[in-house]
């Protein structure tokens, strides 16, 4: 019964909430009011927007040494999670069988272990920093903690699910993923998508003024 719910209605519900929620959130940002800038531009907005979308993947040289820890941990977490999500063998099979109908070569087991270690290490360091540093403690919201803990739980249950003989552990992972998908559009997890318009808006602003940002 529980298995049927998790693999049936709850899966479709979570997928629908995720897809509709993400589109709704992005739409509400893109179609919200925007005032036209009447000042005479010195440069072009579009190249500035495109440049900043990519340039912010690396920190400015002038500040890099002060933010080494969050940058390195951030890259470890995000790259590790991306690799696990799209190249872990069970995920590739799941995507082929249940979502896209096509698959690709999964990463080998050793790469999976490395990616998982990267993702766990990065996430734990980022969360500890949030809890330990006075700045992190002051500015963090409940949503930041829920997002981090939920992601951690999804990753942890994913590791448990590797014990392929246990249907219960696999179902537990799938259930946490469904919770994560439902929470995603209404949380800080949305930065996965909204960082693009955010960087683009700022890049366009700087671009009009002839500034590299």
């Amino acid at each position, binding site marked *: 019964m529980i298995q049927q719910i998790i693999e049936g209605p709850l899966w479709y519900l979570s997928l629908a909430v995720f897809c509709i929620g993400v589109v709704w959130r992005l739409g509400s940002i*893109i179609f919200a009011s925007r005032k036209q800038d009447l000042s*005479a531009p010195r440069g072009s907005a579009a190249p500035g927007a495109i440049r900043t979308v990519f340039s912010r993947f690396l920190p400015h040289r002038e*500040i890099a040494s002060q933010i080494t820890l969050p940058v390195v941990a951030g890259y470890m977490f995000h790259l590790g999670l991306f690799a696990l999500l799209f190249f872990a063998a069970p995920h590739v099979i799941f995507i082929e069988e249940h979502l896209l109908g096509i698959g690709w070569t999964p990463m080998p087991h050793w790469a999976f272990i490395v990616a998982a270690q990267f993702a766990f290490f990065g996430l734990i360091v980022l969360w500890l920093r949030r809890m330990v540093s006075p700045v992190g403690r002051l500015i963090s919201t409940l949503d930041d903690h829920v997002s981090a803990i939920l992601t951690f739980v999804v990753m942890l249950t994913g590791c448990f699910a590797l014990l392929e003989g246990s249907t219960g552990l696999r179902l537990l992972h799938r259930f946490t993923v469904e919770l994560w998908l439902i929470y995603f559009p*209404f949380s*800080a997890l949305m930065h996965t998508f909204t960082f693009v318009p955010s960087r683009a808006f*700022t890049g366009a602003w700087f671009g009009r003024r002839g500034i590299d940002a």
Partner: protein
Amino acid sequence: MSERLEIGLETLRNEMDSKVQSFFSSCVRCGICAEACLFYTETQDPRYTPIYKTEPLRKLWQKEYSFWGKLSKAMGISKPMTEADLADWEELVYDGCSMCGRCSMVCPVGVDISGIIFKVKHGLAKAGFSPEGLVGATKRAVEIGSPMGITLPTVQAMIKHVEADTGLKVPMDVEGADYMALLSSNEIALYPEYLESLVKIFDHAGVSWTLSSHAFEATNAGLQLGDKKIAGQLVQRVVDGAEKLKVKNVISPECGHAYTALRWEGPNFIGKAYPFRVVHILELLDELKAEGRLNTTGLESDRLTFHDPCSIVRRGGVNAQPRNLLGAISADFVEMEDHGSMNWCCGGGGGVSSNERAHELKLTAFNKKKSQVLATGAVGLVTACSNCRTTLEEGVEENEMEVEVLGLTEMIAAHLAEKPASTQNA
């Protein structure tokens, strides 16, 4: 809900555009912006973390625009915002932020934090949560015409001195001139040598220019306060003056926020594009030099460094010009370690220097600039903003540094060569 709170919140609601929503949806509270803010680095007080200064607007977004906020409201469990949500941020955004915009350069998700802080300031100003010093300066700007209470007769007296010292005429209200020059309050009250330099340089380069008796003041206290309506009134005064004289260009003086107000925000404040071009004095000097109309002679042998005014360089895009100009008159010019668009602020921008309450904090923030300057070994600290200049002079004095603060336009005037042949008879 009190009337002032309602006004403040309504002002903030009107700022909730597409950009703001994308910014708050993207911020993950990583705190990296703290390391870019001199008010945080010099005090280690986490309250000065730039993104924390945007809390009034973020809180409103969370309560009224986010899913959870709307759900809480529908369930009747949402706590309304209070006056404290605005009042408690007054000190943070007015005393502890110079609007330098360094935070906006480092945010990994691209949030223009400085831009949001200005929106918060706008809400606070409208609700009446602003420092007395700035409110008084703004009142004088509207009623008298200048935040320092400077009137036309004061300017006319200065012009007489300049004409006597230079033997050159200062053109006033010349219709059809190519350029209309503006002055900041500091340049009238503290640095009359700026006008003297303009007169010499424009005579040398054969520039057709004028001052306006209607619009001589460039300082925009409305921008510093964060009140867009007043900022627009002050910009309109300049626009009226320029249109009356039918000039082709308006020259922003050595004043960072005046440049921002006129060049970039002015048309948005008044709701229409200008029929003239706004050019910063450094841009104009660089153009004249490139055209061969501005020739200099001799080189400063002392070691010089340049303090980048944030509003002119990082937020204004005038980056190469001061370096081109300094390169022409200095034999030993050295950059500070972080310079150009990643420079550190002097600590006095965004109205901080006009806010007596922020004096001690400003001096603490200056420690960053002090260490930067000392590391260069320079004995001359050149800048191109009169507001930065007063802050730097104060810091140099307070810290007993063996450094002279210099204005770039004056240095160019001091190195003028013979008039170019093309302007000999001008």
